[in-house]
């Protein structure tokens, strides 16, 4: 996905067991922090035509 132009910090992978609540919370926090820096996603968003764009 990075190859096609998605920002590096947009996509995250992690392996978390259902018993690893703390790890889940940590990863979620890290992901949120990184994505906040990037701002709202503009790529790969499907937009339907609206009155403004027509």
């Amino acid at each position, binding site marked *: 996905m990075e190859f096609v*132009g998605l920002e590096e910090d947009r996509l995250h992978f992690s392996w978390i067991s259902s018993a690893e609540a703390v790890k889940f919370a940590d*990863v979620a926090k890290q992901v949120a922090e990184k994505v906040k820096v990037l701002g709202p996603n503009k790529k790969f968003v499907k937009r339907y035509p609206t009155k403004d764009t027509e």
Partner: protein
Amino acid sequence: MDAYTDKIKEISKKILSEGKVDVVIGFRKGTLGYMSEPYMAKSEKEAENLVFDCNCRMNLVNYVTNRKDKVGIVVKGCDSRNLVTHIIENKIKREQLYIIGVPCTGLADKKALLDLAEGEITSVEDDNETITIKGDGFEKKVAKSDVLQSNCKTCIKRNPVIFDELAGPEVAELEISDRFADVDEVEKMSADERWNFFGELLSECTRCYACRNACPLCYCPTCFVDESRPQWVGKSDNETDVLTYHFLRAFHDAGRCTDCGACEAACPMDIKMRYFTRKTIKDCVEKYGSEAGMELDKRPALDQYKINDPNEFIK
């Protein structure tokens, strides 16, 4: 090339008359001078129509999927690797096949031929070195190396990896210095540049699915783009839907693609969708040291697990 054609005819007639196969899947001259089309010869008489030349751009492995009869098939180096993948994935049994291997010196790029022509092309002759384009009131000779399809320029296996009989003597394999130069070029761009590059690349796509239909790897009974329950991806020519289709197709082919070039050759809009599949090939070679379809006892890279598989991307 005439020598190949004669030999293919000879072998086909022999195996059809001996009852070794029920059908030979090969090529015959197309209605356009610069195209050869897939052809199924079921009798010795029909085998007379078989040809092989630099216009045989389709991958015939596409036609053996799930067949129950005994099949003779003409394969180039790249196609033979797809045949190996087919056997590994239980789409056909080795015993059902009589493989006529063609040591391949490359195919001519359809667009390059059309650009050179000064009118309608009536025939394209190929003697492995020079290509002669004939048409209405013109005749042109070009070196084959100048009009090769781009996948043939970076071909790693010109001789078939699996065959029962060869249609000619084996040819020397290419020495390629920079196999993934095109992919490297894209990787050097910034994320935004890449996004724009691919948006531009696919802007002409009409979602005709010719690339999927030409591909021997795309044999799912219902393709994800045709599924409506659930509907994974929109069916319109909306930019995001088009991107989704091409990205996902590349992921499905990852580790299995042999870069045969049938997808690009089939595309009516001349879209270079091999950028995506070639990236997956590059990753499989670099990360797993694996080339698709080289050995019968080696499963595709993403179809097996090794303890030392790279996994830095998982946190």
